[in-house]
């Protein structure tokens, strides 16, 4: 609790820009600059810049790197070509989630894993415990040396194209390329956490502030602005993207969280496989669903979900969704009540407020196709 908060290479830039700084997962991060709703709209309508340098990066190299990742992660890493990115999970043997992450295949025998900031130490311990160093696969925690800026929104491609030495428009969704942006070496990844088209630019920590300034400057006419964690949260909520610590954690299994699409038991043995196969056979007891409030009320993390007065689940994330102009939430509910249109209630300050299960994502994604 008294551990000093860590700062990203962009800390000074945030303070100078008048950001409101808050503690987040052990880091001192900007929650908002101009205001959460304005920032949310800037990303949906133009382009926004996010400092996500707090996220962790591990590299794994060696002839057995692929085998180690196949054993550690739930998705099929063998299906990943060099230049591709894969969303995946680290699970415990009981099938619950250590972290969600993206896996980059840098070369045949070389990978990068991007993990949640609050989980860096836990994940590092986990990967070392289960695969160890040596054995033909060497781990390196490069989190502190790596800065990360997300450029997201319909004008993200034009902005990054203007600054990049290569044609970044040809990079497909969940693919990446090495390149030079504003004179800075970067790994240019067509990924994000907003539902909009865009990139995540990995750079050396020492060069990240220069990259940030160059993007803001070059994007001025596009309406580019810095975006805090507040809007990052409302943007991802409208997509029903899970946030570790809110919607998924070490008590939730991958299947009930709706992440069965990244669990590939056919690839062979991996940590959690047996437990998840059992869950798959027996069926999940609850499901993570999207909920829309029918009564006016904001459902928030931890609020009970009710059916005819009986507690049937719990809200994991909830807010006003600026692009859908409704109060929306994600919640675990009993499987029998997870069907689209099911009438439920959320207990808000002791009162049952009407809600219903709706189709997700709440807002249509506009990520690059193909």
């Amino acid at each position: 609790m008294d551990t000093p908060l860590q700062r990203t290479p962009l800390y000074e830039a945030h303070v100078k820009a008048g950001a409101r700084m808050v503690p987040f997962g052990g880091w001192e991060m900007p929650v908002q600059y101009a205001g959460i709703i304005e920032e949310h709209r800037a990303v949906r309508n133009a382009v926004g810049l996010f400092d996500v340098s707090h996220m962790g990066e591990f590299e794994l190299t060696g002839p057995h790197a692929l085998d180690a990742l196949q054993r550690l992660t739930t998705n099929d890493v063998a299906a990943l070509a060099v230049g591709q990115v894969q969303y995946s999970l680290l699970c415990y043997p009981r099938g619950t989630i250590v972290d969600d992450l993206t896996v980059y295949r840098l070369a045949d025998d070389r990978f990068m894993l991007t993990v949640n900031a609050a989980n860096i130490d836990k994940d590092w311990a986990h990967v070392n415990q289960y695969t160890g160093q040596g054995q033909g696969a060497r781990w390196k925690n490069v989190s502190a040396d790596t800065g990360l800026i997300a450029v997201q929104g319909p004008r993200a491609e034009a902005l990054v194209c203007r600054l990049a030495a290569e044609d970044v428009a040809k990079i497909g969704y969940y693919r990446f390329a090495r390149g030079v942006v504003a004179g800075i070496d970067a790994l240019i990844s067509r990924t994000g956490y907003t539902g909009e088209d865009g990139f995540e630019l990995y750079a050396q920590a020492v060069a990240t502030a220069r990259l940030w300034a160059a993007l803001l400057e070059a994007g001025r006419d596009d309406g580019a602005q810095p975006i805090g964690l507040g809007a990052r949260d409302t943007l991802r909520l409208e997509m029903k993207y899970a946030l570790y610590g809110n919607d998924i954690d070490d008590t939730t299994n991958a299947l009930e969280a709706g992440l069965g699409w990244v669990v590939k038991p056919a690839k062979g043995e991996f940590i959690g496989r047996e437990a998840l196969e059992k869950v798959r056979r027996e069926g999940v007891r609850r499901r993570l669903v999207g909920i829309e409030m029918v009564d006016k009320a904001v459902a928030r993390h931890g609020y009970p979900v009710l059916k005819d007065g009986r507690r049937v689940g719990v809200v994991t994330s909830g807010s006003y969704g600026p692009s859908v102009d409704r109060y929306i939430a994600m919640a675990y509910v009993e499987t029998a009540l997870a069907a689209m249109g099911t009438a439920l209630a959320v207990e808000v300050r002791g009162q049952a407020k009407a809600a219903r299960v709706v189709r997700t994502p709440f807002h249509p994604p506009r990520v690059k196709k193909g």
Partner: protein
Amino acid sequence: MAHVPKELRYTRDHEWAKREDDRVRVGITAYAAEQLGDVVFVELPKVGATATAKKPFGVVESVKAVSDLFAPVSGEIVEVNTGVPNAPETVNADPYGRGWMLVIAPSHKAEWAQLLTAEQYEEFLAQGAH
């Protein structure tokens, strides 16, 4: 620093109170609105309900936070701004004007004198508002 109109009185919970003849109009201060960020939900009582000084009369929620609204004075609630729950952003746009919340017919006249003056509220903010 956030705007603190001289003619109003204040609570340590960041509500303002404005005397209008024998009634008191109530809202939240510009400082409170700034601290909350974008207000997305406001819940107010019905006309005819009773307000008790220093007790919650409603709730204001921003994207990130939930806050109780505290009554500056006790009495019957004689007017409620129904515009605010329908357009919560009004609280950020005009906290001392269109963002008002309710009007109380005070039942304990002595409570007014216990509210902070603008100078006292400014000092309270300057000290960190805890």
